[in-house]
């Protein structure tokens, strides 16, 4: 029992009286009181705004090379200026502008891959969980096999066949990650489909498609949302890893992963080149994870205030 959970007073029965509308409002209050969640939300909002309004936020063109201004340190170090807040790289490109534009790519990759994963995973999970039997067995064996494929090798293969690039990165990552969703959704469906309200719907003669749409999907979406959020940060890191290996986003496009990769050799002299995009990556994923964690707590009906016993 956590602090956030109002006591279930007696022997696991729900709290006594319930004719109130406080349920969702109290969840909001719970959320606001949670420091991690608020921090995560703030970081994500800032990063999203940065990405959306990159041309206005970034002081320079991220690919513009000004060779006179090469290897400037950040403003607080000797030789740094406020013209280039975080300094410049070996080609004289403004590091801050590159990080701002890099946020676009990172977020795009994160969100797009998760959308692909979700659509495949949720569909597979719903069908496997609701149909059960041999369909379930088949899909889950495919999932097992899928997990056994080393994803780096797959990524390299795709990069070789289709060439590296943002879109192919999204495709590879999207195709790899659906198994998690399929498993989560299937497990949820297996329990939800045995709930009495689903039985009630079946006893009316409700068609399977309607049961899935009305009764099952809304009750499994909470977990999908949580997994999805956490997965976004994993995908951002995965993209960075691919870019770091040179298999993802190609220069001169600024992606955090490739920036870290490029800065790697100069860690001794211009340490900020790799560290700054690394920090951006860390902050963003931390923010998303914190948000995802608190969403899990809040959306979980077992922990939620007035939906206990469901």
């Amino acid at each position: 029992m956590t602090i956030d959970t109002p006591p279930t007073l007696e022997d696991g029965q729900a709290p006594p009286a319930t004719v109130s509308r406080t349920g969702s409002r109290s969840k909001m209050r719970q959320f606001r009181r949670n420091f991690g969640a608020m921090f995560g939300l703030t970081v994500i909002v800032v990063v999203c705004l940065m990405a959306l309004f990159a041309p206005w936020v970034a002081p320079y063109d991220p690919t513009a090379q000004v060779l006179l201004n090469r290897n400037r340190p950040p403003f607080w170090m000797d030789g740094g200026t406020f013209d280039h807040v975080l300094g410049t790289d070996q080609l004289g490109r403004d590091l801050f502008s590159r990080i701002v534009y890099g946020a676009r790519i990172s977020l795009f990759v994160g969100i797009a891959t998760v959308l692909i994963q979700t659509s495949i995973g949720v569909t597979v999970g719903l069908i496997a969980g609701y149909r059960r039997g041999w369909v379930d067995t088949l899909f889950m064996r495919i999932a097992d096999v899928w997990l056994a494929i080393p994803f780096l090798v797959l990524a390299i293969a795709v990069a070789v066949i289709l060439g590296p690039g943002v879109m192919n990165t999204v495709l590879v990552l999207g195709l790899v990650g659906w198994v998690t969703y399929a498993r989560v959704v299937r497990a949820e469906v297996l329990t939800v489909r045995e709930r009495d309200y689903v039985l009630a719907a079946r006893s009316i003669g409700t068609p399977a498609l309607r049961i899935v749409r009305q009764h099952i999907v809304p009750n499994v979406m909470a977990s999908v949302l949580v997994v999805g959020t956490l997965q976004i940060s994993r995908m951002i890191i995965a993209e960075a890893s691919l870019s770091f290996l040179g298999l993802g986003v190609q220069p001169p496009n600024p992606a955090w992963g490739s920036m870290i990769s490029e800065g790697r050799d100069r860690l001794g002299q211009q340490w900020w080149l790799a560290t700054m995009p690394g920090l951006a990556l860390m902050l963003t994923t931390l923010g998303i994870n914190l948000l995802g964690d608190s969403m899990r707590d809040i959306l979980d009906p077992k922990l939620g205030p007035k939906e206990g016993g469901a």
Partner: protein
Amino acid sequence: MSHFVQDSAAPGRGDAALSIEDLTVEFRTPEGTLRAVDGVSYEVGRGEVLGVVGESGSGKSVTAMSVLGLLPMPPARVRSGRIMFEGEDLLRVGRRRLREIRGGRIAMVFQDPMTALNPVFRVGDQLGEAIRKHNPDFSRSDARRRAIDLLEMVGIPFPAQRYRQYPHQYSGGMRQRVMIAMAIANKPSVLIADEPTTALDVTIQAQVLDVLKLAKEETGAATILISHDLGLIAEMADRVAVMYAGRLVESAAVRDLFAQPRHPYTQGLIKSVPSLSAEIQALTPIEGQPPDLMHPPSGCRFHPRCALRQGRSVCATDQPPFEQIATGRWSACHFHEEMTGVDGGVREREVDNAGSGGGGVT
């Protein structure tokens, strides 16, 4: 009622093994503070079975759990009160002392025996462990012998073989027997049984109740039996305390209480339960919904559902004191004098909506 000179703080016989005095427990929730137990006092004497009846949210379990310091704190918080046991206030003794008392001098049996037994250890070893914890001078083989004796006493067949089995190999009824064996292992002077048979079927319940009676006779422990089942209370208890919305509303000897309740809630409960043997007649439910403890009704907490109130405003404004109204009888109702029997007096003056099956509107 002033003409009763004797004025005891808590309903009881005066030879309390355990007494709870003016206990108030609150829970902090995101929506605010919820007072689950509000000024509750009762005692239980040696060899006596005190039945505590109430519905969900009445605070009956919370009261019992605070005796052994088993409430999760936070969110729970004891606002006031004393729990006196053998000269000590259990609300003020240290954790270590409480652990010594728990399972030793005061033992508890819970509703769900599965969660109370550790699934990865043998039943017998857990029982032996419980014995050795409170009897450090017992050797392993002493404890084992005592454990087997106990298993036999609570009616487990083949106790020596059963000793070596794991909890999942026991049925629900047998697990509850083990819990009782564990509870009486150290000859407690107070035994708290919180809905001990609610999870069990009727025929198994009968077996477990027999074991519980036997356990009480064996140890002479003062027993607090918490249940929502009036039948169970009528069958087992000597005295009864009725709780509603965190407060005590009535207390009396078991026969008096059922024959002539002196609080409209008690009466309502009795009339809500269909009889197994009497002539079949329409049930008279208590109208309305259980109270929201976040926003409890003013005055008497039962007044919005009360059939005796008949619009009188004092019920909504003044909290009725829980006071002694006759020898061995306590009630918290402004108008308890108007109640003369289960079917007398009040019944004729019932408010019009009673029995309509409607209600439910808040």
